[in-house]
């Protein structure tokens, strides 16, 4: 766990309410794994009070060394403040935190599912998998409310992903919910993917996990929770999970420490 002030390289709007922020922090860049996250202190005053959790969107080991990128969506006070930050300013980072994604076998076929801002941690995962020598095939199902949510698709194409787009308003790709189209698509496949990685809103994650369970695909889901500390000290980021041997029920795991990536089977869904 490292605590550092990181210089901002750039902070640019990429869509209606989505921003890319480039940061330099070699110590963290050297250690962080796909799916792990950072607790970001936006400024050293007391409003907002708490750090905010963000994933690493892409890693740029070389230009400049130890730099990476966050993709963030403006949803409230903290993310609004982030938009005011400029190149040269710095933010305080705590990380790498949590349990990231486990990588697939050499010749494993990979399915990724993203809902809205859930795309954030997947490019770094995709880069890592592609670099790991894994053969694929690679498929990304990416759903959003509108076309404005469907960012960085080209990057997945470049990495050899077949990208399937879905929007609730039909403004891009198929119309409707990503999960329903995904279900139909899976039904048509004669070879099922070996691993499924998914990140998105709770209801999406639930149907993805249920789908995966039905079809016997092992699923790894990056879950969200409101967080106080990010390190397992405050017990505020609870996610209901299957109780381990002898533990009482309900059993609450810490998303920040036991996750954010969970196996679909671990989670007890509301």
């Amino acid at each position, binding site marked *: *766990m490292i*605590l550092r002030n990181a210089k901002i390289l750039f902070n640019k709007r990429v869509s209606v309410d989505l921003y890319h922020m480039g940061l330099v922090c070699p110590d963290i860049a050297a250690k962080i794994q796909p799916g792990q996250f950072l607790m970001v*202190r936006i400024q050293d005053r*007391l*409003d*907002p*009070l*708490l*750090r905010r959790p963000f994933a690493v969107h892409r890693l740029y080991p070389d230009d400049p060394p130890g730099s990476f990128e966050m993709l963030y969506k403006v949803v409230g006070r903290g993310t609004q403040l982030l938009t005011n930050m400029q190149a040269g300013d710095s933010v305080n980072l*705590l990380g790498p935190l949590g349990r990231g994604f486990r990588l697939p076998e050499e010749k494993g076929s990979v399915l990724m599912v993203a809902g809205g801002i859930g795309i954030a941690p997947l490019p770094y995962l995709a880069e890592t998998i592609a670099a790991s020598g894994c053969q694929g095939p690679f498929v990304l199902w990416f759903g959003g409310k509108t076309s404005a949510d469907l960012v960085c698709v080209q990057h997945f194409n470049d990495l050899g992903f077949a990208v399937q787009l879905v929007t609730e308003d039909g403004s891009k790709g198929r119309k409707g919910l990503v999960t329903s189209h995904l279900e139909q698509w899976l039904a048509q496949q004669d070879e099922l993917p070996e691993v499924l990685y998914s990140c998105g809103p709770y209801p999406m994650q639930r149907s993805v996990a249920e789908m995966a369970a039905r079809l016997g695909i092992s699923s790894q889901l990056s879950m969200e*929770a*409101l*967080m*106080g*500390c*990010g*390190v*397992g*000290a*405050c*017990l*505020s*980021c*609870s*996610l*209901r999970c299957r109780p381990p041997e002898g*533990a*009482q*029920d*309900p*059993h*609450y795991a810490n998303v920040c420490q036991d996750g954010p990536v969970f196996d679909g089977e671990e989670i007890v869904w509301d």
Partner: protein
Amino acid sequence: MANDSPISLTVELGPLRLKNPVMVASGTFGYGQEYAELVPPERLGAMVVKGISLEPRSGNPPPRIWETCGGMLNSIGLQNVGLRAFLEEKLPWLRPLSVPVIVNLFGNTVEEYRELASALDGQEGIDGLEINISCPNVKAGGMTFGSDPEMAYQVVSAVKSRTNLPVITKLTPNVTDITVIAKAVEDAGTDILSLINTVAGMAVDLQTRQPRLANVVGGLSGPAIKPIALRMVWQVVQVSKVPVIGLGGIVSVEDALEFLIVGAKAIQVGTANFINPPVTLEIIEGLEDYLRQRGLEDINEIIGTLEIPEGPPGTEH
């Protein structure tokens, strides 16, 4: 002044002797392991671990936390691994540390408090107990022990009757007159007082029109409550004969100094650990600098030095 002048931060809280007055507050520092990479526990005056109960507790359903202006609401529901797991899994890591370890404990009945005290007494590696009396007394229809002098007295006597460890009683601010509770637990034999615990609060999500916390009500902590905490510490030090540990909203050495000046012999840092993990180390260094700048050598020279000009106190506003 020369930076090498000998500065002493040592404080004596009755039976408890601390190398410095800076502690971490229960529930905000886990069991020490979580932050160990950034905050070597040995540097702290003392470490209060997450509150434990006889049996493990699942805690409340999420959401359990919400940020407010200058503070945060939490309703963890006292989730904890329980006594046995604490002794078997957590204490062994704590035992070798050269830092006083204070175990924060709570129960649903006076009996549970008593049993916990007996079980923890004489355990190597435990240097004191902190009784969290801000818990609902199931036998008294969920009214919290800490809001009734008689119930508070019973809990503290029960614990004292079963342990020789230094006993800290942690007071809740959700009372009309905190000095009444302070005197009651003092009569019951508490060695030390700590205050304040969180202030009961609430927030609502306008989209869903549901409470931000599944438990509806939660505990407010952080800088927003500092003025309330400081006032209560000042009220309590005036009436109590036992040493007082001040906490509530401390995020800086300046905050810590305010509590020491009004009369707290030590302080605890809670929520600030989340925001700025090394905050306790910064406070310790800051205290040394403060003394040095004033040509003082001993932290005790500033504790309780609040100067009240003239003019009638008495609260009117």
